[in-house]
């Protein structure tokens, strides 16, 4: 029996060290400075002041302010989205081979996991890679929720937060407070009074975006989960919209629409997400097996 040598990829090592270094630095900074301060100074204040800046200099419309902010954010996170789409495509292409592996190693879970990881490594994908853009969006949503409430300042507590968070050098604030919070039938600081239009818009655009992003899966369990998520996520956000300030709901709608456009554009350039035909996958599988056999013979 030969002991297998594990070769460390220096590029991978650098990447891991950098990631863990950043996480460690964030934890140390958080415990030293305080998470509240980091959240306020690193997320809330910049977001709030950027939104106010757009409001002050782009026609004093909160909708324009949110739209420009969203588009900028989406452009900034576009490399991640492209990465996510590419990863999805690779994952989709792997589905038939993953299904084959599941069939092949049905009774041997340990081996199945090993083979799956091997396959992921070969293909250069991470099954969790697609979650990154969503994870990055989460603090943005939380930050925006707080920022929008403060900016629209419908209650004294929110106005107080606005007063505390505006940068001292931002002189235009004197002219723009309180912000114009009415748009069409909406008071942007309050939930949609209709109360269906915005929830339906949020749920509809989110469903469409999810449908475009979700990778086809040959695993029936995975496919069923994807389908459930495709319905549940939009419904959940639709329900949240009935509770949240309509300004935030409009952010969701604009963000979803921009996401759909970007997704559509990327797919036009890179081609749609499709699973490899099972025959091709099977051939590849055979070829891989063949290679392995040859390797083991040597």
């Amino acid at each position, binding site marked *: 029996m030969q002991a297998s040598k594990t070769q460390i990829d220096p590029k991978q090592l650098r990447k891991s060290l950098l990631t863990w270094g950043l996480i460690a630095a964030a934890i140390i900074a958080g415990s030293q400075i305080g998470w509240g301060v980091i959240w306020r100074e690193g997320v809330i204040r910049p977001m709030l002041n950027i939104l106010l800046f757009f409001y002050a200099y782009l026609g004093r419309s909160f909708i324009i302010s949110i739209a420009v902010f969203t588009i900028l954010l989406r452009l900034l996170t576009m490399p991640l989205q492209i990465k996510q789409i590419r990863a999805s495509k690779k994952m989709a292409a792997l589905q038939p081979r993953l299904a084959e592996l599941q069939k092949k190693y049905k009774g041997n879970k340990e081996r199945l996991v090993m083979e799956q990881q091997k396959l992921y490594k070969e293909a250069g994908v991470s099954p969790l890679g697609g979650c990154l853009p969503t994870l990055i969006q989460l603090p943005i949503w939380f930050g925006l929720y707080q920022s929008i409430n403060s900016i629209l300042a*419908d*209650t*004294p*507590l929110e*106005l*107080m937060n606005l*007063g*505390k968070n505006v940068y*001292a050098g931002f002189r235009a*604030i*004197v002219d723009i*407070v*309180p912000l114009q919070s009415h748009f069409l039938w909406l*008071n942007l600081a309050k*939930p949609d009074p209709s*109360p*269906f239009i915005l*929830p339906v818009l949020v749920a509809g655009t989110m469903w469409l975006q999810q449908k475009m992003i979700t990778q086809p899966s040959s695993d029936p369990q995975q496919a*069923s989960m994807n389908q*459930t998520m495709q*319905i*549940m996520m939009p*419904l959940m956000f*639709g*329900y949240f919209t*009935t*509770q*949240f300030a309509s300004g935030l709901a409009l952010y969701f709608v604009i963000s979803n629409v921009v996401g759909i456009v970007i997704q559509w554009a990327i797919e036009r350039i890179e081609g749609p997400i499709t699973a490899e035909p099972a025959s091709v996958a099977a051939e590849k599988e055979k070829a891989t097996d063949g290679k392995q056999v040859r390797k083991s013979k040597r």
Partner: protein
Amino acid sequence: MGIVKKWGRYALLLLVLAVLVTGCMPGRTVSNVGWTVVTAEDGIIYTVLPTGEVLALDAEREGEVLWRYPTKKSGGGGLGCSIVQKPEENASLPLDAVYGIPALAGDLLLVTSYDQHLYAFDKKTGEIAWTFPIEEEDGALVGGVTLYDGIAYFGSSDHKVYALDLASQKLVWEKPFTTGNRVWGEPAVDEEHVYVGSMDHYVYAIDRQTGELIWKKDIGASVPGAVTLANGILFVGGVDRRLHALDARDGSELWQTEELGGWVWGEALVHQGYVYFTSLEGTLHARSVADGTPRWRPVSLDSPVRAGPVIIDGHLLLGTEAGALFVVDMEKGTRERFYTDLKGGVLSRPAVVGKMAYVGTAVGHIYALDYSRRDPLVWEYPPPKK
């Protein structure tokens, strides 16, 4: 199994749709959180907690609850449908957020609420004697009422100023006075005029009898808080980080401060030729009423200060957002920590009776503190668990 999953999905979908269709959503009604407001009279502390509960506490008996509103706990009603009702329709509901200091008028305790109602409670029993609803859309009441000659004057988020006769519960003016934006601060009232600041950048003087405009003055910034009237001068704070002193006769500006560190929101206090006021970033200022010259250097209080100062035993008493109480020497401008073990920040003015201060915090705790004692805490509500 597949059928179960499929129908499970549809059932969930139907449930969510049912919630949407019936409108049984708690967030649509009683949802805002206020801060604790406190007032005191005849040994009784009247308070509204951030949750909208109204309480009368016995100051002499360690804050024993004399009455509370609502008397019952809110009934859930399944998906929260029961709270689609308004408080006057359902006596088990607390009020929506309250930010203005309650006022006492004869047998009544007057409370303004964010739910667009002025509530008059019987101050002996805690029962609602009557309510006055604001019919306009977005008519949330934020500032408290100012009483003068049996009339309650108050502003509203619907941009209007109301004058309500307490005896008849009828509006005094033919129509409410309209400004260009929200009115969140208490008006100042004298024999002839009602003075009020609005978020439309203007300060208004209104005829007290007719509700007609006498004069208005653009101070160049929103006025989030109350105006103070003393010696014929109106003191008005703005989001321009300045305190403005206006001549109450015609609104002409007598002086204004330089730009300070934060918004001037809390009500100014005038005492023996000086005006004392706070700015939101956490400093206390003292200026000469005559020309605005500083009495002493601004006193830093280490944390944001929303409310203005009150006087206790010849000193200024202030609470901060960080939950500390300071007393400041009025002559020297030196500060001293009075009490720092508060749970929650102080965002409204304490009530002072003699050497006792009653302080409410943003998380709904009330403290009775004796200024003459080394250990000032006399009692707290809710009482600490033993």
